[in-house]
């Protein structure tokens, strides 16, 4: 019950922010949609002028954009989130939770994900309405696949959050990495056999198979799903371990409360 109390506290705070700062929430959805429109009309102009000319590329853009939306929030929750907590002086208070900072962070990530599902869903509906391509929304297959896909991004977020604890000013690297995530998603999977070793790449392809190919999670190649599990576990694990390493340095140097 005590662990649940931490999660509920994190969920409530996210919900309050979402509701109280509704303008911020709406502008985030609108901005995402505008970026999508730019990509959509830009690609359409390049490929012939009508959605039909884009073929499967259009559906790929919708899926890729959805994964990128999830990935951005996952990444930002940990990296930018850590900086924000340090800046406002609440990071040390979170560290003092008897349930452990690890659990506080996981609860935060889970709360963000739940809230994010709703906002991304709205963007997704807008995207599908604009393109006229109504994709398969098999929630039972998609939620675990999305979680598995962005778990690797959480690892990257942990790594960057750890860097922020020690080096403080890492905003430039954070911004650049946000766009590197686009490359992981957008680069054609068939380019190289090594693509599957990157974060997001294999997951995006599998999500595409559910949303475009109308397959269920159980119909996906088990080898690919297992590879995704392993890939995400490695990135997440490495990210978390490096975070613990930097956290240790920050505690040793007394940097947790500094910004």
């Amino acid at each position, binding site marked *: 019950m005590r662990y649940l109390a931490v999660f509920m*506290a994190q969920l409530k*705070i996210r919900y309050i922010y979402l509701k*109280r700062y509704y303008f911020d929430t709406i502008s985030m959805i609108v901005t995402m949609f505008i970026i999508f429109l730019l990509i959509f009309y830009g690609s359409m102009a390049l490929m012939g002028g009508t959605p039909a000319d884009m073929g499967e590329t259009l559906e790929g853009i919708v899926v890729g954009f959805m994964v990128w939306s999830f990935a951005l929030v996952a990444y930002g929750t940990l990296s930018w989130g850590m900086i924000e907590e340090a800046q406002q*002086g609440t990071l040390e208070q979170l560290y003092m939770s008897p349930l452990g900072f690890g659990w506080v962070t996981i609860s935060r990530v889970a709360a963000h994900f739940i809230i994010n599902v709703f906002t991304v869903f709205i963007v997704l509906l807008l995207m599908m309405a604009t393109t006229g391509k109504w994709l398969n929304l098999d929630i039972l297959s998609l939620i675990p696949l999305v979680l598995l896909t962005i778990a690797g991004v959480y690892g990257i977020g942990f790594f960057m959050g750890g860097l922020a604890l020690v080096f403080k000013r890492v905003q430039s690297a954070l911004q650049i990495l946000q766009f590197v995530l686009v490359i992981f998603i957008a680069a054609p999977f068939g380019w190289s056999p090594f693509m599957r070793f990157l974060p997001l790449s294999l997951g995006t392809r599998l999500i595409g198979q559910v949303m475009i190919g109308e397959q269920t999670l159980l119909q996906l190649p088990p080898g690919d799903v297992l590879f995704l599990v392993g890939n995400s576990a490695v990135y997440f694990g490495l990210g978390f371990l490096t975070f613990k390493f930097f956290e240790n340095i920050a505690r040793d140097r*007394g940097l947790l409360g500094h910004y």
Partner: protein
Amino acid sequence: METVLRVKDLTKRYPRRRDKPVMAVDHVSFSVDKNEVVGLLGPNGAGKTTTIKCIAGLIKATSGEIWLNGVEAQRQPKKAMERVAALLEGNRNIYWRLTPRENLEFFAGIQGHQVRKVKAYIDELIELFDLKDKEKTSARMLSRGMQQKLALACALIRQTEILLLDEPTLGLDVETSYELRNVLKEMAARGERTILLSSHDMHVVQDICERVIVINNGRVVVDDRVANLMKLFQVSAYRFELEGHLVKELEMKLKERFPLLALSSTDHRTYIDADLVEGSELYEVLDILKAGNIQVKSIGHKEPNLEEIFLAIVKGELK
């Protein structure tokens, strides 16, 4: 008395990349009994905050032990956190976009308390800290004093046995500092928590603490009851009230014999404040004044204050 906080040989050396490590805390040992309110004093850079943050588990100690009611903090950090809460950076320990009640609910949750079970205590804290009118206002809209009170309330909502307060009145105006002091005093009087408080504001410490630990250059230089220190200082501190003013030669003669003696004057009176260690020194001052034909109106023990005692300790004048 039951000891709830015990710090044993705590040492913290901050590593530096191309330089020698900085010794911030050097074999500090002390203990605090249940419901005791202890002041941690020291000049800037003495090691107070590092000591407090080591106890709170936020800074890794180089060596030494920290026992929080039977739990060694470095070996069992999670268990230790059930026993201690801290107010560390005044008004910076709260979420500025949340209201006071939301902040309290959040920090209760982070401690693992279910909100419905602590609702009554949240109401009590809102009442105690006079936040009722501002209950639905975002913390960023509150005055600095209110924010600081809220930060303290957020530390209290964790309902831990031990409370660490690092500069709780820092940056507050006189009125708000006085108000917050009264809340702390009330808390101390209730005897509900064991408090270790660091502050530069000696009024706060003198008002609230029963005992003080003075740290200088990372070491404990004094650990005694405030009353004992006051008594010790009072015995040796005298104030002479003299008729008229002293001539230059007499002033020099007094200062030559008692270099730390302080002179002040009004239109018709001169005052001498002096720490006279032995009784015979009192008569020596009187003899010098008599020889200068100065009429002594009164001699009294000077009322000491903690600030002077602290300065004397730090300067090494009080043994």
